[in-house]
């Protein structure tokens, strides 16, 4: 079994009131190239910074070779970082930048005195040792002869190399790379990806790499940790994560995907887009599932031979393949193929069983904790909504004084009653008129599901936020500020505790 060089145990990180890392646990094997992948703000850089020691976890532990280093300052950790914007020292030349860490270093040297007794002394590295090490590090990044150059005269790619040399010259156990290729152009990035991979092989140390570029992650990593919203979504090998995404977020973020709502209709049979398909995943009959189909797993055929039949609505040439969008009934299916089709042509589509990935839907309904207020409205998620409170007590009605009257004639004041609020995925709509709905928030996620979008809106302040998940056919943008509209009759209330507040 491989050694765990780094292990995060239930790590939580708050910035002020802002929860950025939400109970994250995982380990990193010694010598592997591991990538933290996710959209911006997912917590990947914060995780890296906690391993480097720049940020300390609010709770939880970070172990290095089994020892707790959670609170150790960065200069006491055997890790070195390649910063996003390099952070080279502008007042030092290339040699001095690379030698910075070596000059801080103290090594134990053993000597023998006249009596033959051994003693050790903590000493600085000699000038010659430093020169040799710097030379070797610069050779590693192909910058031989650049020692005297001022860092401000270097190109972005060269500065990048200096930053890498400055980190690896200290022979760290782990090299941390924070989006190191983000500032380079595409061609340079591709070259550096190969070089970094080669460097990882030669140095044999652990690389922890942070990126939002899924292709980069797939190309370089041994292991990928997909993060979103401060939570680890999936950990696995590039092929594992690509072929078997564990949820729709991962499927949507990594590569292109067709995502549909489906229902399991039998043993290894799933129905979506109005047809039944054979599949390889086992789920209970009647269970609703998310169905993920990669565009390259959809085969085009003649209309009579296809399980699905549809009309080509767009063809885009992508270099190595065509991206063809086919309208199948009300669903859109995206196909990738080296063959092209005419727009408007009617074609058939087939999907092999192993091209169909089923996953348990993360969201089936919205549940909130709410309180009934004076006006017989329900307050939750930072707003108030009209609702029908009579559903709490069968047969009851509201009198003109706004009291709830039970069938027995007893009058109840519901003010302050705690209730469980349930709203279905299809019962919520949003509006850009802030006053139209009961509460407001920002769209944090949009996933296309063939015929509709699944949208998540986050309301409230960071600490007590609530998410609304729902389906809509309208296209919105991430970060749009919207208000949540729920029809009165769609809010399902149940009493939380049986103790009723009586008049």
């Amino acid at each position, binding site marked *: 079994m491989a050694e765990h060089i780094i292990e995060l145990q239930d790590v939580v990180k708050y910035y002020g009131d802002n929860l950025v890392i939400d109970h994250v646990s995982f380990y990193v094997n010694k010598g592997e190239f591991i990538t933290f992948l996710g959209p911006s703000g997912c917590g990947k850089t914060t995780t890296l910074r906690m391993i*480097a020691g720049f940020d300390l976890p609010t709770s939880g532990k970070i172990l290095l070779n089994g020892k707790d280093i959670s609170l150790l300052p*960065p200069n006491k950790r055997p890790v070195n*970082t390649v*910063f*996003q914007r390099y*952070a080279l020292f*502008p*007042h030092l030349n290339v040699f001095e930048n690379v030698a*910075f860490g070596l000059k801080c270093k103290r090594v134990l040297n053993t000597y023998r005195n006249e009596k033959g007794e051994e003693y050790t002394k903590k000493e600085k590295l000699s000038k010659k040792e430093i020169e040799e090490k710097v030379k070797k590090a610069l050779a590693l990044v192909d910058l031989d002869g650049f020692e005297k150059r001022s860092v401000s005269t270097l190109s972005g790619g060269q500065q990048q190399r200096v930053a890498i040399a*400055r980190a690896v010259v200290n022979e760290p156990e782990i090299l941390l790379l924070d989006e190191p290729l983000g500032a380079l152009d595409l061609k340079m990035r591709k070259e550096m990806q190969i070089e970094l991979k080669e460097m990882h092989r030669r140095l044999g140390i652990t690389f922890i790499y942070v990126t939002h570029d899924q292709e980069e992650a797939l190309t370089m990593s041994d292991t990928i940790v997909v993060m979103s919203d401060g939570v680890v979504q999936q950990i696995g090998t590039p092929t594992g994560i690509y072929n078997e995404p564990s949820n729709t977020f991962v499927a949507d973020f990594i590569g292109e995907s067709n995502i549909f709502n489906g229902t399991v209709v039998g043993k290894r049979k799933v129905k979506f887009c109005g047809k039944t398909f054979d599949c390889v995943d086992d789920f209970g009959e009647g269970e609703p599932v998310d169905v993920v189909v990669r565009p390259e797993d959809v085969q085009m055929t003649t209309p009579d031979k296809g399980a699905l039949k549809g009309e080509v609505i767009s063809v885009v040439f992508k270099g190595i393949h065509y991206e063809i969008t086919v309208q199948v009934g009300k669903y859109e299916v995206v196909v990738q193929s080296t063959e092209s089709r005419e727009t408007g042509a009617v074609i058939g589509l087939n999907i092999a069983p192993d091209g169909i990935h089923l996953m348990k839907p993360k969201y089936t309904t919205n549940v909130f904790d709410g309180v009934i207020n004076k006006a017989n409205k329900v307050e939750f998620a930072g707003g108030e909504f009209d609702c029908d409170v009579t559903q709490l007590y069968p047969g009851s009605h509201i009198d003109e004084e706004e009291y709830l009257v039970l069938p027995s004639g007893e009058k109840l004041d519901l003010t302050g009653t705690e209730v469980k609020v349930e709203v279905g995925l299809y019962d919520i709509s949003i509006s850009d008129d802030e006053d139209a709905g009961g509460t407001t928030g920002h769209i944090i996620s949009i996933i296309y599901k063939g015929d509709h979008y699944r949208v998540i809106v986050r309301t409230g302040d960071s600490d007590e936020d609530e998410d609304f998940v729902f389906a809509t056919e309208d296209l919105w943008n991430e970060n749009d500020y919207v208000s949540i509209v729920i029809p009165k009759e769609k809010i399902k209330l149940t009493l939380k505790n049986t103790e009723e507040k009586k008049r």
Partner: protein
Amino acid sequence: MKLRFSRKTLCIPYAVFLVFFVIVPMLVILVYAFTDRNMGFSFGNFVKFFSDPTKLSTIVYSIVIALITTAVCLLIAYPVAYILARSKMKQKHVVLMLFVVPMWINFVLRVNAIREIFNWIGLLGEANYFNTVFGMVYDFLPFMILPLYTTLMKIDGSLYEAAADLGGSAFNGFMRVTLPLSLPGVMSGVTMVFLPSMTNYVVSDMLGNSMVTIVGKFIYEYFGSDWHMGSMVALILLIVVFISTWLTGGFQSEENVRGANL
């Protein structure tokens, strides 16, 4: 004819200003310094100045007072600027403002206030040099804090992290990253404190109980009686200033000085 405004046209007023208010006065001083009362060319003033021990010691005293003032200002200002620049406090500009606000109060009034305080605690006339330096530090401190704060603010925070990441202790990081990168601000602040402390005789007169004479006072007094000697002292001061500016690297036009000046 169409009137055309080019950038060159815009330069004319400034050129005129420079000629009449900088170059001509300098020439006048130069001419007066090397002439006698009959406007004949003479090295007399030069010889007289350097053969008079009291005049020479005044120059030395002025330089020493200015050096001490500058050093004390730097010792007080650097930690303040450093702490403010690195703190994550939201209201740090308010604190900075508090240090700078005395500058907005009339200078003479401030010096008078200190004089009254010294008088009240019985220091006036007792410790003339201490009082003078105290007053100068009080008056010139903002000129040291502001350029230091500006340069320290501009240092990219990731450089501190890089220094720590590479194994540097806090002290190490300060000596090898913060200090060298803040040098332009130090130079700028030193220049802005050192020069006025050599010449601002209002402070030395009022707080030194008229027992402390600095070069500025000297020049002022000579221009009451002997313009030629006064011009010579002014010229010598100009040379001292020139040398000190050159020593502190104030003539560097390199980008590392950029922004350090207010």
